[in-house]
């Protein structure tokens, strides 16, 4: 670079000649800082979402770059939240991309002391077999002489953090299987 540019890059020079006389702001901003842009500004796409935490239902803008979520901000368009997110909602990026997340199915055999890896397809097949078996083991055509047509062999807990469509299919399937011990956070 030219000598002039080099001199004008000195913080001391900028402090003396610019508006930042105390040398605490613009004068001492490094080149790296000046080249920073918000992840949101440089994202490939932004997708409309809703906070996964409480029931206020704040709007979220999900920013995606290179096929990965890079930031989650409040959606200013929401008439309910008006762009705000609470500390939990603001940390949705960590929830969804942080190191606590797992991406592999794990299996613990009866009386086992450690997890073992298991393929997703195999896990699904094993679970289907167990549902069928436990359903039969706990099947009741009648209770106290009255028709019940149900199974007490397996139960399910969970739903308040799931989508309506997911709860719909779960209840539909479990009900057809005869399971009645279906519950979620709403009653707890």
């Amino acid at each position, binding site marked *: 670079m030219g000598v002039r540019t080099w001199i004008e890059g000195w913080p001391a020079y900028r402090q003396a000649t610019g508006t930042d006389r105390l040398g605490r702001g613009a004068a001492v901003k490094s080149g790296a800082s000046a080249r920073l842009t918000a992840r949101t500004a440089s994202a490939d796409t932004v997708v409309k979402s809703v906070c996964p935490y409480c029931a206020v239902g704040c709007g979220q803008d999900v920013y995606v770059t290179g096929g990965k979520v890079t930031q989650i901000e409040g959606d200013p368009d929401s008439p309910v939240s008006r762009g705000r997110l609470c500390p939990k909602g603001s940390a949705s990026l960590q929830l969804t991309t942080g190191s606590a997340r797992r991406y592999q199915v794990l299996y613990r055999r009866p009386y086992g002391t450690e997890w073992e890896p298991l393929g997703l397809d195999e896990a699904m097949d094993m679970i289907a077999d167990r549902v069928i078996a436990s359903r039969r083991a706990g099947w009741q055509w009648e209770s106290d002489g009255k028709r019940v047509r149900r199974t007490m062999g397996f139960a*399910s807990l969970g739903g308040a953090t799931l989508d309506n469509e997911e709860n719909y299919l779960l209840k539909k399937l479990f009900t057809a299987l005869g399971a009645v011990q279906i519950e979620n956070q709403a009653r707890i």
Partner: protein
Amino acid sequence: MQQDLQHADCIVIEGSNMAECHPVGFQWVMEAKARGATVIHIDPRYTRTSAVADLHVPLRAGSDIVLLGGLISYVLSSGKFFRDYVVNYTNAATIIGEEFTDTEDLDGLFSGFDADSRSYDPRSWTYEGTEVQAASGERDAEYDVRTAARGEAHGSGGAHVGTPRTDQALEHPRCVFQVLKRHFARYTPEMVEQACGIPRAAFDRVCAAITANSGRDRTTAFVYSVGWTQHTVGVQYIRAASILQALLGNIGRPGGGILALRGHASIQGSTDIPTLFDLLPGYIPMPHAHTNQDLDSFVAAEGTDKGFWANMRAYTVSLLKAYWGDAATAGNDFCFDHLPRLTGSHSTYETVMAQLAGDCEGYFLLGENPAVGSANGKLQRLGMANLKWLVVRDFSLIESAVFWKDGPEIDSGELRTRDIGTEVFFMPAAAHTEKSGSFTNTQRMLQWHHAAVEPAGDARSELWFSYWLGRLIRSKIADSTDEMDRPVLDLTWDYPVEKWSEERGPGEPSAEAVLAEINGWDADGKPLPAYTELKEDGSTACGCWIYCGVYADGINQAARRKPGSEQSWIAPEWGWAWPANRRILYNRASADPEGRPWSDRKALVWWDADEGKWTGHDVPDFVPDKAPGYRPPRDATGPAAHAGTDPFIMQADGKAWLYAPAGLVDGPLPAHYEPQESPLPNPLYPQQRNPVRQARKFAHPDNRFQPSDGAYGAQVFPTWPPPTG
């Protein structure tokens, strides 16, 4: 709705720390405050909500019914109830049957209590001359009466389709108004001070604030959360607030109502389309076991005769068609017999007891963590240790997934890993950014969230899991001729899925296709526009009648995102609220019997005589063209049986229930009982605790209660007054 709080002249927050727990919603309380509203926070603790309130009222935990009862009593005795609203829109004038006996005469019990079963028979609570079904809650209690009456009345129009007797002057000794006055008479300011620990001056301020801010020109809103629900009498807390707000004329009004602040992203949705034991979608009850029950008897028993629950057959048949499609015909009762039946409570706590007993051998945990999130974590973990198999689907290795090697019982040696036979599958779940679907928030508003990225690795959505589990099970039993398997094989279970890929295997099902089924379609497959289009003849299918309309015109109404800044404060084009995009329920009550707003200041919906329809800022929660002056014919049923002055369209009688003749298991009116583990005697009644609370069935050495009633260990320290001598 949360934004509506800005219109309140007074906001009472009780059983909630809204500023900390629903902080973004709380901005609307601050908006109200900026406009001059009075904010009152009633709570045992002084929290951040208290810090910005105009008044913090501390009260003893568990004593809210005494306070609310005291406010009700004040409103009644001072005459400061909203008389026109009360007379026209509540059941204040309805006369109760002679068999009813109140807590005043039974030492704190209501009539109909059976000590052996620890339950109430609600039949003595009914209106004079007619029994009536509830719009929600425990509706099966009326089964025998309503089916017997139907049997007797078959062909004669129905003996139980009666009209309650009323006294519009509110003077008849057995009219609800007088019953209320008598019931709450002992809830005096002195009692409030003694039982709640609320100084008289503070109580007086609350009385003044809520009455001065109710009526034609001003409205008061109540806000609550789990500080109210987590009690053995939690339901009656909510009932007490409903009674108070109905007396003050605040229900269905802008800046009024009772806002429940729920706690999970779609806990409202998971109650509407319930993964709950006692409900089917749209609050249709799960059938209980009865002799010779068929669809007709179910509908007659559980539905109402008047109002919109009278159409229960249409809602139920449409649901059965959504579930079982072509297999459900008029000839087989639309597969009604495919539904499993209840024989009491099958809640998660009963299930834990069944797991401990070895009766329930399999368990799915789908984004829930009972080892730490349910009551008595130890029993939860002991139950899980007794299972044959457990499937945990979550983001990370939660406590419930690793209980077998990590937890208090492992640390103490009470449980040993090598002795626990539970087979455990941990399956990573997709996050909300990785799947498309809808959440329903605390104000009944559905909002669609779009997938931004695919879930990585083996992580999948619950939509993927439930769909493919169903496909696998159905293929494994495809050749079965066992009658047990018919419901599974008859299911409609064919949703569009994304293509199978080498990398990810079976594809993701279309959430929008499931939404379309929830919305429903007519005989030609066209999406239904509204629940009023549902038919009982099997020509419509609808997975959840209260959500009908969310996919009207084949458009995902829940995905609408017209910015709030471009709409009115109601913002009807952001998302979609049930029912029918009505944002404030029972908003007919915001207008007087002639259909004019009670005041210009509090206008919400009103009758447009020229157009012959209801109109306003919100979608009217009323039959659109039913004139205020409409009076039903004597033998009318269904919605047509409601007058143009009956705003509470889900209630059989179209009125807000100050007194609930049906639907509740612990009384038609709230009564104060001490909490289960209270160290103090009940200052109001000899009956100490909620008589129908279920404690005995959960008896277990690891489920002990804090001793009380003078038992060893019940003493409270420091004692007052100090011992003398």
